[in-house]
């Protein structure tokens, strides 16, 4: 039974440069700041960063895993607060997604997500509504 305060099992997702290249191809977002250090540094970033939409997609995985049916997601929104910097090594970066049921109303659960990388919040106001 879904109840307010229920936790979603925290998930850790590893993100490497290869993942970003693959996501660029699948999504059609070829902005070079997501694969080219030279460009990323030139625009003032510490290095190549993950697509915000990639991080958002990872956070959604934690939600759909909890919901069972990915089609039960009726609303999903985030604010991008900090970039996920992905070093050019085999380890990459780690994105950690935790969540809690904040409200249950008329058959809809609201999930609030906490999404961090190296201990810092990379998404804020990350919220999903799930039809139960």
């Amino acid at each position, binding site marked *: 039974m879904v109840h307010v305060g229920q936790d979603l099992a925290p998930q850790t997702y590893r993100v490497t440069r290869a993942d970003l290249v*693959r*996501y660029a191809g699948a999504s059609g977002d070829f902005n070079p700041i997501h694969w080219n250090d030279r460009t990323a540094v030139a625009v003032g970033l510490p290095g190549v960063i993950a697509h*915000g939409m990639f991080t958002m997609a990872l956070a959604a995985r934690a939600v759909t895993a909890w919901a069972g049916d990915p089609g039960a997601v009726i*609303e999903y929104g985030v604010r*991008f607060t900090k970039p996920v910097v992905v070093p050019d090594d085999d380890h990459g970066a780690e994105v950690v997604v935790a969540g809690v049921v904040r409200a249950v109303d008329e058959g809809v659960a609201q999930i609030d997500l906490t999404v961090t990388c190296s201990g810092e919040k990379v998404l804020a106001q990350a919220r999903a509504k799930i039809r139960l």
Partner: protein
Amino acid sequence: MALDPSFVGRSYPPTEPYAVGREKIREFADAIGADEPAYRDPAVAAALGHPDVIAPPTFPVVVTMAANQALIDDPALGLDYSRVVHGDQRFAYVRPVRAGDRLVCVSTVEEIMSRGGHDFLTTRTEVATDAGERVVTVWSRLVVRGEG
């Protein structure tokens, strides 16, 4: 402000239909590491009540990002893309996107504002099938970082 505020309320013509295929959904799901069978197996999707395999929740950006390109590239808007970062993203679903959909997007500039030396541009894209069935509404907010 660098952005032309008169763009608020402006809509762009509907895009050409985007035909959503099973293999594109599989490719996208693979790229985000999502292994749900409903993204790949029509029988599993059917058991959940979907007529064909469904797409992950963030899949609609594949079509909306392309739909917003006409606006972003409009020189009259005055958007310097090299200074743009993604601010917010939101989806409100009528139903999940699924294989077989022919999706048409209509983008509207919902808000342009300036705060703390940065400009903010919010677009709303209505995604529907070419038969007129509403599928998802997508909001995207871009931040144009100030020169300071």
